[in-house]
């Protein structure tokens, strides 16, 4: 029984990270109608930069207790890449979806070599400093507290995003822009700034997720292209453009992966895509998306 709980927690941890990236993907799709293949690259960028920043902090003798805040700062600092990339994307707004996908695919290719150039081709990882937060013993297995903190952080982000979108003025403006760009513009919304801000926020969610995951997993060149596919599965299952959908989809994908790794490893990825196809066929708009008219 406790082994089962352990598996579930592993799945939830994975889901937490997936949710952060998927939420970024959803925000950008919801407002800008762009499916951003480069979200996996933001994730990888966060992971690499997290390692670098923790390394610097270490050399300045900053306590390893500050690992989590340092990683979050690393994710947020990387937000600066948002506006210039959004500036390039501006040229394909309103054009065919294939062009938008391809432009973000171009970013994926370029980012991969940027990683190779800065951090080299070998996988990079942090040592086990994250165990400094201790482990919680439940029955006969231990869960690193760090993992629980990441799960908590993801839940906080989910609640915060929800409150931001539903309760604040800026959130209302965002939703209005997503709903009807021309009308929002006519009512005096600076759509350009909104787009730039949303894309940056989406990127920061991705980079932070990458930074948070790096203490437990190595950063490698392939992580970008592997992760984007999983994030895609999440948003398709949950429904394009819906934050709640990202939450549900991340849980589904995270748990299924965790369970299949234990019970039938051959199905690890297969099961995820089988569900994606099932969802697309039965409910093309996903579990929480708006069904197309």
């Amino acid at each position, binding site marked *: 029984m406790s082994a089962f709980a352990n598996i579930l927690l592993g799945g939830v941890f994975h889901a937490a990270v997936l949710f952060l990236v998927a939420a970024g993907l959803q925000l950008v799709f919801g407002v800008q109608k762009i499916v951003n293949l480069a979200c996996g690259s933001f994730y990888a960028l966060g992971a690499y930069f997290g390692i670098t920043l923790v390394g610097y902090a270490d050399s300045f003798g900053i306590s390893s207790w500050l690992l989590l805040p340092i990683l979050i700062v690393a994710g947020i600092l990387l937000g600066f890449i948002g506006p210039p990339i959004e500036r*390039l994307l501006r040229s394909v707004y309103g054009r065919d*979806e294939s062009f938008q996908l391809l*432009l973000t695919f*171009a970013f994926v*290719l370029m980012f991969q070599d*940027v990683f190779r150039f800065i951090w080299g081709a070998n996988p990079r990882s942090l040592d086990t400093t994250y165990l400094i937060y201790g482990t919680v013993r439940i029955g006969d297995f231990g869960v690193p507290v760090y993992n629980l903190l990441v799960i908590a952080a993801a839940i906080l982000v989910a609640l915060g995003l929800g409150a931001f979108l539903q309760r604040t003025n800026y959130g209302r403006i965002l939703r209005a822009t997503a709903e009807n760009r021309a009308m929002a513009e006519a009512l005096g919304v600076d759509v350009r700034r909104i787009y730039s801000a949303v894309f940056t926020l989406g990127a920061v969610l991705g980079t932070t997720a990458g930074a948070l995951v790096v203490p437990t997993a190595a950063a490698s060149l392939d992580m970008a292209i592997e992760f984007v596919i999983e994030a895609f599965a999440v948003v*398709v299952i949950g429904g394009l453009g819906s934050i709640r959908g990202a939450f549900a989809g991340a849980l589904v994908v995270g748990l299924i992966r965790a369970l299949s790794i234990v019970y039938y490893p051959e199905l690890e*990825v297969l099961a995820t*895509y089988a569900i994606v196809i099932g969802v697309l066929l039965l409910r093309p708009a996903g579990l929480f998306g708006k069904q197309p008219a």
Partner: protein
Amino acid sequence: MTFSKAGMVAVAGTAALMLVPLVAPPYYASLMIPFFAYAIALLGFNLLFGYTGLLSFGHAMFIGFGAYGTAVLAGVLGVRSFEVVLIVVILAAMIAAVPIGLLCVRYVGIFFGMLTLAFGMLFHSFLFKFYHLTGGDSGMRIPRVKILGLEFASYNKIELLAGPFYYYCVALLVIAGLVMWRIVHSPFGLHLKATRDNARKAEYLGVHVHRFRLAAFVISAGFGAAGGAILGFRIGIADPEIVYWTQSGQLVFMAVLGGFSNFFGPIVGALTFTILQDQLQSLTQYWRFILGAILAAIVIGFPTGLAGLAVDLTRRAARRSTT
């Protein structure tokens, strides 16, 4: 483009391709084999993308069908004739594409792309994980087979690829091009274009939109499998890497690079991409960055691709000469 003009382009292009093994060292001629594979696959891809308006982001799956089909037929079942292999994998891929297509063509735009992507990844993880069936990440070996019933035993691999097999591929590309030209200029092709431009109106005029999209999907699968068989013959191994989603992305890249609104665009794209990738790889290990930058530049600045650019330039030159 009228037939005579297109015919001239085709004849000149074929003649130029025939000259390559005579002037270039065998190594370079053998490098051209992937170009033929991609060009044939892209002719099919573009029937779906350029003419029907459906962007498949899982098209590498059909190349994988072709390569793995070749591995199974030649490696496991011991079929020794490449023509038999080619025909069987094309038919098998088309049959397999029917149920997949039935599910996919209900959607357009981003949902079609995602569904094809999911099917592609499903196939990839099947190849990757079911080690006892597919060899997992080490793939399946593809032995040398006879072409046109001839063994060419005295040729080594490079000589075979640069000589007889090269001309064999030229012939295959010409056949594939003629078949595709017939398809897109037939009433069937017009139906496809009508469903692309306005599906509702086409439906109203009596076009069975889903049926036509399915037909385009199935045909493009056959072309993809043919390309995959050639690629498999060249590499000598079928591994899961060739069906990964980035490979599908690469196919879209080639189509856009060449220009998907032009009949010859995909072929131009495959040629440019193959040469560019080879040259960049020998220049720098950061070739992906350069390819990405080129892709971004094309998407932003030249959405009609190289073929569109060429048509534009010739038109401008013609206008200048008349005034």
